[in-house]
């Protein structure tokens, strides 16, 4: 047996040693996958060109909030055009771009490079993998959907003349922003991933996600306008109309007269219920996909 003496090997080969430390198991594996995916969503640890799209798009999502804060700082906080309850109306494009640009890579890289067999041969269940990756993307998306809301809420407070008074009047905006930002991220994120996970190619995934957000938007508008009693339910199935409605419900705000939510005239809480249903359906589709996919 060549090289049978382990001590002789150890002298010239310092490269490999045995490991007797802790093995943290499933939970650590899930956390590692979550962190790696979250970093990857913003291109951290990748080459520079992979960072441009996610970071620029994420920055766009903050611009309306910065404008509002700038205006408030100059004119006092009397003029409130852009608020947490209607923020989605100003950040639809960055949110859709982020989903269409980043979601296809979340599962697509592992499917394309066939890395799945490495993950599934580790201390992970298939469902652990799907949940860790989905949670990472929802977190990444929450930077765009929740970040500006918190910035607005906090910024408005700091810019007001009377901070204790402002807090007494507006403290509810903080938990409401939190809830709205997370609901938007969870529904938009899971939906995008469910579409992307089923697309055989990256290009199809991008188009599919973009279509889900942007093609449904005018379609729902038309159906609500001319579809009568049945057509008005279309407002539930265009993700941005659905999530705008859910935000209205969370903030307890009545929709503007010419908004689609006002014209569809559906109860506001129904948007929240439908948002939960969308989230559940998307999550099930993702889990089912990775129970069945060949590794």
């Amino acid at each position: 047996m060549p090289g049978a003496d382990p001590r002789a090997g150890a002298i010239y080969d310092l490269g490999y040693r045995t490991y007797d430390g802790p093995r943290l198991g499933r939970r650590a594996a899930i956390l590692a996958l979550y962190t790696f995916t979250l970093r990857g969503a913003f291109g951290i640890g990748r080459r520079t060109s992979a960072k441009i799209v996610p970071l620029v798009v994420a920055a766009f999502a903050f611009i309306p909030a910065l404008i509002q804060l700038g205006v408030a700082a100059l004119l006092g906080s009397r003029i409130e055009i852009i608020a947490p309850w209607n923020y989605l109306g100003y950040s639809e494009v960055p949110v859709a771009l982020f989903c269409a640009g980043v979601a296809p890579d979340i599962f697509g890289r592992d499917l394309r490079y066939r890395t799945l067999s490495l993950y599934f041969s580790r201390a992970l269940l298939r469902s652990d993998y799907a949940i860790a990756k989905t949670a990472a993307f929802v977190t990444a998306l929450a930077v765009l959907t929740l970040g500006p809301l918190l910035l607005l809420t906090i910024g408005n407070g700091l810019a007001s003349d009377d901070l204790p008074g402002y807090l007494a009047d507006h403290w509810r905006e903080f938990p409401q922003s939190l809830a709205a930002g997370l609901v938007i991220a969870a529904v938009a994120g899971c939906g995008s991933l469910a579409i992307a996970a089923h697309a055989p190619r990256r290009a199809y995934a991008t188009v599919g996600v973009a279509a889900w957000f942007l093609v449904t938007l005018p379609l729902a508008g038309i159906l609500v306008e001319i579809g009568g009693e049945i057509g008005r339910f279309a407002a539930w199935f265009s993700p941005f109309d659905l999530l705008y409605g859910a935000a209205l419900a969370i903030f307890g705000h009545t929709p503007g007269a010419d908004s689609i939510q006002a014209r569809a005239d559906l109860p506001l809480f129904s948007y929240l219920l439908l948002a939960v249903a969308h989230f559940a359906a998307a999550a099930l589709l993702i889990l089912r996909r990775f129970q069945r996919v060949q590794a």
Partner: protein
Amino acid sequence: MHVIETRWMSSSASSAAYPLYTPPMHVIETAGLTRRFGDVTALDDLTIAVPPGITGLVGANGAGKSTLIRILLGLLPATSGSARVLGYDVASEGPTLRQFVGYMPEHDCLPGDVSATEFIAHMARVNGLPGDAARERTAETLRHVGLFEERYRDIRGYSTGMKQRVKLAQALVHDPRLLFLDEPTNGLDPAGRDDMLDLVRRTGHEFGISIVMASHLLGEIERVCDQVVVIDGGRLLRQGAIADFTAATGTLIVEVEGDPAALADALRAAGLRVEGDGRQLLLPFDGDHVLDRVRDACADLGLGLVRLERRRQALEDLFRPAPEALHAGS
């Protein structure tokens, strides 16, 4: 081997805090393992027990090697039958078991857009190593497989040989007790092949990691493995120590300069059974008198005796009808 003992002792000493690991008699045990894909039976009632060491899993393409490995890793459910790896049940204790195994797939499995360091450190964490240990072992493992400066570059720019090394590194980074290598020399040139086999042998022998190496290249198995499991058509064909497969056989090989047919006739006239095999003659060897007869016949005919030796069995013989079989009755 001393190394194996210390490894197991130290790991059982820490077993209070971490999942219990006790050294099993066999690293792999299967009972009636069957896997069907539609009408195709990839594994057919396979029952094997593999002891620690380096084991070659041999079979033609499509014999069921990869299917067996994938079932043992829990990547694929078995249609029926059961399997235990390192004493853990594959179906019910998968996540615990898989902390202690490494897997190098046959196919490409590396993301192209990260560096080897980034990826191996990530896989170390997925394997449950804490952050510091993951970084440390990433550096050590990459050095062990022979990747140096290039480990900071994106994997997409690597040669096949470098990618194979990274694939091996990700399987080794958490110091597994058992390593599954599926065709580890696939796509390598002869020098890369030698390096990889050397690396496999050192990993197995010097660090006491049990290895199951699937290959359809029997020469590689002979060079690296201690024992062999041969499967064919999803069934176990043979299993044993490599020495059993390469022992001297009862066949004598004779090669002469000149006309082998004349020699064959002369030997047959002397009452020996002779088979022709190209320029070689094959005779059943049942004592030194056969050697004398051949020598005398060559002298009589004036033929130059080039080769006279007992044939050593090669692993290849498992897959072709052996001439010995013809003589089995004699």
